[in-house]
């Protein structure tokens, strides 16, 4: 029986329980004066019974889905054909997997003849346990529903009980955020620890040579690739924190100043959303644009100036990334400029300063913490950006300050390491997680610092 059908059946039992319980509670209510009043409205009695019917059965179903394969395998191993199974674990597992696939109809015939003989045992066991699971789940649904139904009394605190469950549900939902954070930290840490068991953290964090590809030869421990990540960190900073910011800070800041201080309200109404479209364009589109249109242009400039240029340059990737970041810088600057008290602005203007002098000498210094916070957030966003650098920055780990040369970044290397032919457990694959950990920690720190700076600033004026 398919899980979906079973789920619908259980839900059906719950629905019947809901209707029956509501009707029964309504008869209490209609019993006339002199009787005890219902503690909860009939609908809550309905929910009370429905939840009793559905929840235990669903929990059982989930548990059954997890346990069933093991039970089926256990039953199949007791069949006569299983006595011939090879002793060594690897062959044994291969034959069992084949037999399971034949039984499920995924493949027509097995490579090993034994698996074909084992398949009927698997099929019958699977059918037996599937029916058993369905029957148990339905019984549980009926039993739960009946248990709750006979407890329906006028004084039953059905609403309190249902609401307690709702609160539990709310709590669980909000715990998922913690679980996700914990999942990120643990999965990155676990793989990184395995990586650092092979490559020393000091070599990883201070080495100048990055060439993970040769690490495929596992037996040559001494010459198995170099994992010095400094060129990647430099490339990330060069593209994300230097080139992109040289583009984004002046453009973003001046846009924000113009929009808040000079623009007509109607113009602002149209220009601000148009600017924000820049943040909504998918990064893969920017990446394609950088690789197809901007990179050849940059290369031509570089050659015209007589600088050795590669077709994938830091300047193309960083420049396009800077354009993408403009809305982040400008909206943060916008908010913090707007938060500067009007009296400061008026005071400056009343002393005879021009608008630009007021902005440069009063408003921007007053809003500086907010602007710096915005820039830090933008940097954290830029160094975590992946597609633009994957498509336009190249993969050569160069330690160079020439913006026309190709450099690579942490994110581009993570993609590169995990999307080729990968064997799990190789230092090459694990290195991606170590890089991910570094990236996670740095963006986290940047965000915390940025939020601190912004918060401190707010306290000063409110």
């Amino acid at each position, binding site marked *: 029986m398919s899980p979906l059908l079973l789920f619908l059946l259980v839900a059906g039992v719950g629905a019947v329980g809901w209707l029956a319980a509501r009707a029964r509670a309504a008869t209490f209510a209609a019993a006339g004066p002199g009787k005890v009043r219902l503690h909860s409205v009939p609908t809550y009695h309905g929910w009370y019974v429905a939840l009793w019917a559905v929840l235990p059965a669903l929990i059982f179903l989930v548990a059954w889905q997890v346990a069933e394969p093991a039970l089926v395998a256990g039953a199949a191993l007791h069949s006569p054909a299983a006595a011939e199974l090879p002793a060594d674990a690897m062959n044994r597992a291969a034959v069992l997997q084949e037999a399971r696939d034949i039984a499920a109809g995924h493949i027509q015939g097995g490579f090993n003849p034994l698996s074909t003989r084992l398949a009927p045992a698997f099929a019958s066991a699977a059918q037996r346990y599937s029916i058993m699971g369905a029957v148990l789940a339905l019984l549980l649904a009926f039993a739960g529903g009946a248990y709750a139904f006979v407890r329906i009394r006028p004084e039953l605190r059905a609403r309190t009980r249902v*609401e307690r469950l709702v609160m539990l549900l*709310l709590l669980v*939902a909000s715990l998922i*955020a913690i679980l*996700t954070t914990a999942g990120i930290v643990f999965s990155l840490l676990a793989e990184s620890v395995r990586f650092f068991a092979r490559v020393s953290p000091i070599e990883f964090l201070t080495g100048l040579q990055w060439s993970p590809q040769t690490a495929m030869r596992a037996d040559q421990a001494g010459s198995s690739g170099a994992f010095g990540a400094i060129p990647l960190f430099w490339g990330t900073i060069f593209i994300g924190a230097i080139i992109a910011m040289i583009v984004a800070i002046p453009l973003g800041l*001046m846009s924000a100043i*113009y929009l808040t201080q000079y623009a007509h309200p109607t113009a602002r109404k149209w220009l601000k959303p148009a600017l924000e479209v820049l943040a909504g364009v998918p990064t893969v589109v920017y990446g394609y644009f950088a690789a197809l249109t901007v990179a050849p242009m940059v290369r031509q400039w570089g050659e015209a100036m007589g600088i050795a240029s590669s077709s994938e340059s830091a300047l193309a990737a960083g420049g396009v990334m800077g354009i993408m970041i403009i809305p982040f810088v400008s909206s943060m600057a916008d908010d913090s400029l707007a938060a500067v008290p009007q009296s400061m602005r008026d005071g400056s203007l009343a002393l005879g300063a021009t608008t630009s002098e007021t902005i440069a000498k009063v408003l921007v210094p007053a809003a500086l913490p907010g602007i710096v916070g915005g820039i830090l957030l933008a940097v954290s966003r830029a160094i975590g950006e992946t597609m633009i650098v994957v498509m336009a920055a190249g993969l050569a780990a160069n330690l160079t300050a020439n913006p026309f040369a190709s450099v690579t970044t942490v994110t581009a290397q993570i993609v590169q390491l995990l999307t080729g032919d990968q064997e799990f457990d190789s230092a090459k694959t694990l290195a991606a997680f170590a890089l991910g950990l570094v990236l996670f920690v740095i963006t986290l720190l940047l965000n915390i610092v940025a939020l601190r700076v912004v918060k401190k600033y707010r306290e000063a004026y409110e």
Partner: protein
Amino acid sequence: MSKAPTDWRSNAMSRRLRSRYAREKRFKALGLAAIAVSIGFLAFLLWTMASNGLSGFMETQLKLAIDFPRSSLMIDPAVLRGGNAEQALAGAEIEGAVASAAEAEFGPGGARLISDAGWLRVREGILKNPDIVSGRAEFWIPASGAFDIAAKGEGDPATGALYRRLDQSGQVRHGFNWSFLSGSDATDATAVGIWGAFKGSLLTMLVTIALAFPVGVLSAVYLEEFAPRNRWTEIIEVSINNLAAVPSIIFGLLGLAVFLNFMHLPRSAPLVGGLTLALMTMPVIVIAGRNAIKAVPPSIRDAALGVGASRVQTVFHHVLPLALPGILTGTIIGMARALGETAPLLMIGMRAFIATPPGGITDPATVLPVQVFLWSDEVSRGFVEKTSAAIIVLLAFLMAMNALAIYLRNKFERRW
């Protein structure tokens, strides 16, 4: 001795004033220039995509006459009218027959003028009307990439001359490339389509919204309405705010480590992509949801509590419905971000070559942005316009979602 008052009419002072006003004007112009550069860049980007991509929606077709009785094709129309038409055609060598017909029609090398997938049109034609195999029939067949580029005036001169010759004899026409909207990935640029990736995107978004929306709304309700102010609540809030700022590729690493390597869910499947993107979208929904719930005035809650509703009833019957437009707007914006996301999906293997649209959430699939990435890597010239065309489809989809969000906000948003 007292200082003389400043003589504002003196030459020195009026020069100084002039220069200050000039600086003011320059500053203002600089601000306008910054906006103009930013928006100009956006316009340039959109224009580049449109000018490259619009031709990707068009195809060049060649008229090819096939004389079935004299071709190498041996099919009996009677068999085709029976139930086994598909099987009979699978055995027939249509591809070869079309190639030889093209050689006969366009001269030596003619087979190279038609698309690799061109024979499929002949197959469709035969399926639709089996009687044509007993005579001579004409088909419009999509041209190969090289001929298509020559038709658009950019190919090598020899093919260009051939195009002009065929064009004059009326054997060439340009049509809308319907197979681009209905097909899937292919190795030949003239045969690729976007539907497979589009469907993959839809399935992935379905999984994402089914998970992220309930969880996000419920945690927003909890944090805003019920959570006690204590250490735990603070940890939850901090982790939600941090998750919203974690780079997307980290979520890809999480998906790879947890969903694929630990839980052994199928690779490349919309299920795993949707789960990963749901974790990424959930914080966005929580933050938007909290703001929307916060905007509902306390008087609504007081009124409901005052007539005897419980706190849960107050929230679910009154506060949540009033906050829903704001929550939906935030959800759509979060979904639009997830729709354009590429990097985490590369991590969980959604970059395979998938030639059929996925049938369910556990089938191998690809999504629109990943398809753009895959096509951008192709060397063949014809893929440039297809990539841009796919980008146009993606941007149109995103624009529709954002327009919906703006519409919802304008229609239902209430100021209290």
